[in-house]
């Protein structure tokens, strides 16, 4: 049995009791809120559409069953059994694994920095939604008041509002610019809200979670109902669930398409090599298409990583939440329930999102047709409104045969509905550019904008609770401070430290840095920690002892499925994902896409490679948190070695004395 050599936990000793949940519902909602985050809204629908819904769900479900749920169960069980945060838990299992806990805290800290910055942007949009017309519906006038701002006219009103009036972004990551006052104010407000909710640990988050976990479902339902009644919604949904094969034949790693923004945040969604290509409609039969899709390793990698990050595994947040449970709680049922709810939410959200996006595509297609019709009417002097959208194709062919040169001189744009449906994006591009534009065309736009951004804010807030708890609970358990210092001060200090560190993201180049953090700080480290977690529990702690603990907690021995996945399947899967991820990272050049008004092909984003020092930062971020593990193991080894030396030296001294005496 491993001796615990580490700081004595103060949580359940001495005078202060360990806090506990008011009821089971608070605990479930907290875990669900932590798992369900922004990635469910803007990453899963994108993956579904890219790989063609039905075909993507198969690897997704397989990953859920063999990787997601077993890992999740381990975290809940170990937290509930050992009743400590991540640092305490892993130190208790084995002193050499203590670095896992420290690494989890570090990764949680880094993630909460940039996650709350995204919430800052959401808050900014939320505050700006209380006016009609919405500020991103029209371009501002230029200095002379003779026309619109050139940057806005060249791109679009929503892109301009996002890049210029929100971020005020620079053209290069090395050009930091100034701190944006309005973003700083919103950052302070969002950290104040987070502090208000985590001020007393789970006592306060437990009350707040009722609203922040349930409100998004209400809004999603409203959007679903509204979305399905909009014209064009059904086309969007059909497109979502149609598998498409030609995608990965056209796309090459690192290639980007002409799209305003399609970067995919890491923890919200990890995939540095996500590009896009124009899709053609599939030709082969449905069965063959599905097999072809499933043969592509990228689908499996994306499904596995999506499940992994969607459940927020290896952050230590679920361990922290479970540590406040009563010892005899059925964590097996909890794990399966929460994981299934998370996946169902992803599906639900993707239906709502794509019905709205289908509406947007139909709307854009209609306006494209109207523009062409106007050109035709003006050029050929037809009566006003004489060509309807349905007649357009017939009239165009007629004119092409009779007067092709005049028609060619008009430079009409090609209007295909598929092109508009193809314009998808994930991450902030979906929320702040595409969805805001879709909302502009819905009747009662300000109300929908308020609802949408309110939902995003509460979604992110409930995930922030988990992040903050994964930082605060282990630190509290370690007993770093004297017991007389109240918990409010500790949480306040943690929030203040995070706020001050996150100010760097309010610089003008903040968005580029956020992408760096999102793509490199979390993903690889979390995979390493998850692998060490499952191996640590299955082999170091011992599956026999773990099964005994589970019997004690749930009353049933874990079945063969659990034992096989813990011992064999999950570690293997994680190892494969790790290797594949490193391969993808090495393959894709370290580059980013910049909003450069001087770029020849503006408003397309310009592909630039990171300068050397930024590349070094990326590599550091990838591995630094994981270095806690070998570091702590080394320290423990040295300490043990020194103790052994001291013991043998002390043993030798009495022998000398005895020898001398007798």
């Amino acid at each position, binding site marked *: 049995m491993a001796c615990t050599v580490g700081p004595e936990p103060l949580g359940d000793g001495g*005078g202060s009791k360990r806090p506990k949940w008011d009821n089971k519902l608070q605990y479930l909602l907290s875990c669900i809120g932590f798992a369900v985050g922004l990635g469910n809204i803007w990453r899963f629908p994108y993956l579904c559409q890219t790989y063609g819904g039905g075909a993507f769900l198969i690897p997704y479900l397989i990953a859920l069953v063999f990787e997601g749920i077993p890992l999740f169960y381990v975290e809940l069980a170990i937290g509930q059994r050992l009743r400590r945060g991540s640092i305490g838990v892993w130190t208790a299992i084995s002193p050499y694994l203590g670095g896992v806990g420290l690494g989890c805290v570090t990764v949680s800290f880094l993630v909460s920095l940039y996650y709350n910055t995204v919430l800052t942007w959401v808050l900014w949009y939320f505050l700006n939604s209380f006016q009609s017309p919405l500020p991103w519906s029209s371009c501002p006038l230029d200095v002379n008041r003779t026309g619109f701002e050139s940057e806005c006219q060249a791109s679009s009103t929503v892109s301009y509002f996002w890049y210029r009036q929100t971020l005020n972004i620079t053209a290069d990551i090395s050009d930091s610019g100034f701190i944006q006052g309005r973003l700083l104010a919103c950052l302070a407000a969002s950290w104040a809200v987070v502090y208000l909710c985590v001020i007393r640990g789970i006592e306060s988050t437990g009350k707040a979670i009722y609203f922040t976990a349930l409100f998004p479902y209400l809004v999603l339902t409203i959007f679903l109902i509204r979305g399905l009644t909009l014209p064009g919604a059904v086309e969007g949904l059909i497109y979502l669930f149609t598998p498409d094969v030609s995608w990965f034949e056209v796309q090459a790693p690192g290639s980007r398409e002409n799209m305003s923004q399609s970067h995919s945040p890491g923890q919200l969604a990890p995939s540095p090599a996500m590009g896009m290509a124009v899709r053609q409609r599939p030709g082969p039969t449905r069965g063959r298409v599905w097999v072809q899709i499933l043969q592509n390793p990228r689908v499996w990698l994306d499904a596995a990583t999506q499940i992994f990050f969607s459940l927020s595994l290896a952050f230590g947040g679920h361990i922290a939440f479970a540590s406040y449970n009563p010892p005899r709680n059925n964590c097996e049922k909890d794990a399966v329930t929460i994981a299934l709810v998370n996946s169902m939410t992803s599906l639900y959200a993707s239906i709502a999102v794509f019905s709205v996006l289908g509406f947007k595509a139909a709307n854009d297609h209609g306006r494209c047709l109207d523009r062409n019709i106007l050109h035709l009417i003006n050029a050929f002097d037809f009566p006003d409104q004489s060509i309807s959208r349905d007649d357009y194709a017939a009239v165009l062919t007629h004119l092409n045969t009779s007067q092709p040169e005049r028609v060619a001189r008009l430079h009409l744009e090609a209007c295909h509905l598929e092109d508009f449906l193809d314009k998808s994006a994930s991450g902030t591009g979906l929320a702040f550019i595409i969805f805001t534009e879709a909302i502009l065309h819905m009747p009662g736009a300000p109300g929908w904008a308020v609802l949408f951004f309110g939902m995003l804010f509460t979604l992110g807030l409930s995930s922030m609770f988990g992040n903050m708890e994964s930082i605060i609970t282990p630190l509290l358990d370690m007993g770093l401070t004297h017991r007389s210092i*109240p918990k409010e001060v500790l949480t306040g200090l943690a929030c203040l430290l995070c706020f001050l560190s996150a100010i760097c993201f309010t610089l003008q180049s903040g968005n580029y840095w956020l992408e760096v953090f999102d793509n490199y700080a979390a993903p690889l480290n979390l995979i390493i920690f998850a692998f060490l977690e499952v191996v640590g529990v299955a082999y170091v702690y011992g599956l026999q002892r773990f099964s005994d603990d589970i019997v004690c907690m749930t009353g049933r021995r874990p079945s063969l499925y659990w034992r096989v996945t813990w011992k064999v399947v999950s570690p293997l899967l994680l190892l494969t994902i790790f290797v594949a991820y490193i391969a993808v990272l090495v393959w894709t050049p370290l580059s980013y896409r910049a909003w450069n008004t001087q770029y020849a092909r503006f408003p397309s984003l310009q592909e630039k490679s990171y300068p050397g020092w930024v590349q070094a930062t990326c590599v550091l971020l990838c591995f630094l948190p994981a270095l806690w593990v070998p570091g702590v193991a080394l320290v423990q080894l040295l300490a043990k070695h020194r103790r052994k030396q001291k013991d043998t030296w002390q043993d030798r001294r009495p022998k000398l004395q005895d020898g001398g005496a007798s």
Partner: protein
Amino acid sequence: MLRLLFVLVPAIHAQLCQPDAENAFKVRFSIRTALGDKAYVWDTNEEYLFKAMVAFSMRKVPNRETTEISHVLLCNVTQRVSFWFVVTDPSKNHTLPAVEIESAIRMNRNRINNAFFLNDQTLEFLKIPTTLAPPTDPPVPIWIIIFGVIFCIVIVAVVLLILSGIRQRRRKSKEPSEADDTEDKCENTITIENGIPCDPLDTKGGHINDAFMTEDERLTPL
């Protein structure tokens, strides 16, 4: 003589008003787009109204107060409802400079639009840019107001929570500390569940060496 004039005037008319002529402007009406079912038909009476509005605009220009409706010439009226127009001087020999016409139309654009129930997009004067309305900025941007409200509420709530926490702690320190932690006690005792003991992880960090303990008992006391 008079008959000669009647022949000459239309000829001069035709020369002055032509597509792309000097000082000529093209106008485009999109009545059905603007009014839908309530659209009126474009006929010579509407043309007369248009001439009247242009003449009215010109009369507001200094030195042109004597412009008459007959000085405004329309030509090339299409089914689109688009046509060209020029404004001639009283002698009807040459047209007024485009600059004057443009400034006159811009000054009275609103009156002209309203006469036809149209707006700047549906009544287009090609080559005459529209004057954009100045942005109506409220004195305080709306987002600051709502931000202030939310921030104040949050700060007040935080202060209240901190104060109530302080009060709770003061009350607790005044009362004697009671017996507690039956839960912790349970954790340290060995409970049997289904025949399997649930030991907590041994946190004491030391082992009891049985061999050492029993040694005393093995030795006979002196």
